[in-house]
């Protein structure tokens, strides 16, 4: 009974985001699904203690140049385990890839010119009577800073994953229902207990690399599927913890979680 409840809950958590993504997306979404699968491959290699698993990250910018910074950021978390020669090879390949990816990355990135934001910035600067003060507080970096900040906080927003960004949905975004909303319970528990989990290194490194790399992209929509695995695994950490509690607790959780999640699943399938 306990195992059955755990398995059904796990399946519901893991199928929700991909299913929702496939049902809401068009043909061009294959790239993003493959990118998420690349992380899954890396995860499997990591679990098998394959020492060069991080080389899989280099596939991501080949899939889509907008992922260019993922391997750059992700490797920072693994640098202590990497031999010097591997690091050199990794860097050389990365530089080689970036030669081809840079232009497209720039077009997708927050650094691409934004005339509307530039006009607003100029207006703000003109309103400040002291030029030096204006230069210090409101300069060209404001545009990138604001976009980066906005992207980072969107990735850190629980409403992004459990409530389709409600109540402040993003215009020109799928505002996807990524996980059933009751999954917020195992997610928060998972976050708290992540520090004690043996999976913490892989989850934290891919999560942070994913968040920071897509923060450099102008519109994160669809690109954020790269966070699917670390987010779902965080939920799994919480779910495991719930099922180690007393029977009453996990039964209560299942009583709330299962019917509501099935209804949520039905909503994304039938709507």
């Amino acid at each position, binding site marked *: 009974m306990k195992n059955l409840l755990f398995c059904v809950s796990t399946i519901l958590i893991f199928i929700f985001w991909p299913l929702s993504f496939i049902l809401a997306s068009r043909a061009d979404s294959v790239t993003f699904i493959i990118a998420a699968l690349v992380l899954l491959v890396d995860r499997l290699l990591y679990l098998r203690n394959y020492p060069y698993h991080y080389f899989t990250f280099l596939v991501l910018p080949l899939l889509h140049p907008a992922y260019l910074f993922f391997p750059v950021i992700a490797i920072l978390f693994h640098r202590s385990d990497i031999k010097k020669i591997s690091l050199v090879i990794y860097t050389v390949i990365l530089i080689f890839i970036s030669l081809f990816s840079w232009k497209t990355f720039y077009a997708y990135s927050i650094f691409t010119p934004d005339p509307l934001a530039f006009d607003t910035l100029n207006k703000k600067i003109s309103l400040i009577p002291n030029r030096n003060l204006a230069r210090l507080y409101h300069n060209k970096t404001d545009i990138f800073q604001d976009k980066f900040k906005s992207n980072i906080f969107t990735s850190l927003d629980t*409403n992004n994953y459990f409530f389709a960004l409600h109540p402040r949905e993003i215009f020109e975004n799928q505002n996807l229902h990524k996980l059933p*909303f009751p999954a917020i319970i195992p997610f928060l528990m998972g976050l708290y207990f992540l520090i004690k989990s043996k999976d913490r290194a892989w989850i934290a490194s891919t999560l942070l690399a994913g968040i920071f790399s897509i923060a450099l992209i102008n519109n994160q929509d669809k690109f954020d599927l790269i966070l699917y695995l670390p987010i779902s695994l965080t939920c799994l950490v919480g779910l495991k913890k719930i099922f180690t509690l007393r029977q009453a607790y996990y039964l209560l959780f299942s009583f709330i979680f299962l019917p509501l999640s099935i209804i949520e699943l039905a909503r994304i399938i*039938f709507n």
Partner: protein
Amino acid sequence: MKFSNKYLPVILLFLAFLVGAFFRFYKLGETPVGLYVDEASLGYNAYSVYKTGLDEYGKWLPVMFRSFSTFQSPIYSYLLIPVIHFLDLSIFSVRLPSAFFGVLSIPLLYLFVKQLVIPAKAGIYSSDSKLKYFPLVAAMFLAISPWHINYSRTAYEANIALFFLLLGSLFLFHALKRSWFFLPAALSFVISMMAYRAEIIIVPALLVVFVLRYSGALISEFKQRLTPILISLVLSFIIFLPTLQIMGTPGFRARSSALSIFATSGQRPWGANEGKGLVHELQNNHQVLATREFLSLYSSYLSPRYMFSLGDSGPRLPYAGMGTFFVWQFPLYLIGLYFLIKERDLIDFKYFVFTLLLISPIPAALTRDPYSTLRSLPLVVPQILIISFGLVKPWEILPAFSSKLKFSVVALLVIFSSVRMFISIFYFNDYFNSKFWNYGWETVVKEIPNLNPQLPIVVDSSRGDSYILMLFFLKYDPALYQRENFEVSASDYYTSLTRSDTKKLGNITVKSIVWGPDTDEAEQYLVADYLAMSEVQIDAHNLTIIKEIPFPDGKVALRILKTNPKPK
């Protein structure tokens, strides 16, 4: 003890107080430019009660003030009466109580945090303890909080309610040592509940957690505590009784019924779809969807995206380019949360912070508005305390850097943020947000003496309750206004929500302008905003522009026009 060690906390507290006072009082009557109708309603009703004892509708000393089709809590309006007596009716005087209690909240928070932290940790205020600066940091962060400043610079009842909520909490913790403090605690809580409706949910919930947490202490000296507690409860009940009596009326419930996400009438919950059949019924169950919406709104109040980036979605509320907190406070928030969860010594403090953190968003999350910083204002306290804890706690455990260096970093951040906020409040806000603050009506009123007194004036009200702005800026005689206008009888004051479309203020009529009869047939002045009277319409109806009042960005805000009817 060195002089600097002895007096540094006092000096820093005074500095926090000064900074807080500056941001709350500087150009209070000028920025935000204009006056929101709710502020005008609070001010004019206080003026009316001061002059006649009756509000604008002719109700004698109302328990709740009727304000358009809803009701406002009474405390703010009654607090305004002495202010109006000394300073007359003006934008400054209407905002003064909010700014005053906003500033007083700074030392109050200092005292409260000190009260919570001192008994918990022996020797915490010894000269070597870094946590001795904790209350100061909290006070300073409140002093420069964009969220708290926003509501201190505008006439909103929520700010007064927050002050009394804090005061009540301070007395409540004192009452654990001296039972007679239950009396001022109860009085403060009742005032808080009467000052803003969100506190009607927050205060009882806070008290329940308090009783559960301190049940042992309360029972152990039950006999000594019984009399003060009973007297406090009876007194609170008597004071709150008039509010209780009208709580069931349609007037009191109008706003909450219209906004509640659990209301079965009106707007359907987020995500509801049209359709029929069993599957559809399962998917669109009203209570499930409303609960989901409630949870989404609730979690938004604790989300860094809303706190540090988006801020409030209301047009008048966020300062341009600023969230509810400063971005650099985000890591401190995470650190503070982590250490507070792990904290073993400051249990009272921890209980208070987490209780208020979890309770405060409830009233706001029950309504549809996304991240309403007004309805969730008490949340500013626990979130500031967490951020402050996130700054102070690592100081205690991190390797010792120079104290001067640490102070310099914090001072730099405070100065940098203060200047940024200064720019946002005093240079950007009026430029970008003036249209949401009914800018221009004061100028319209100043222009009226220059118009021909023989001609009637029609003021357009199709896009808002402009009559209250006219009443406010004209300081129109309340007795005269009550005689000229009738909207509801005193007996139906809390029950009937019907409104009259036309208001008479001497030769000024406030109503929706009717094209043709008002623009072409009678010689009169028309006052309307840029949307009601465009250039095309002015030409089409042969109107003469007497005056155009521009927004700070140069676009037309309001127009005073004269009709030129063709001779019959």
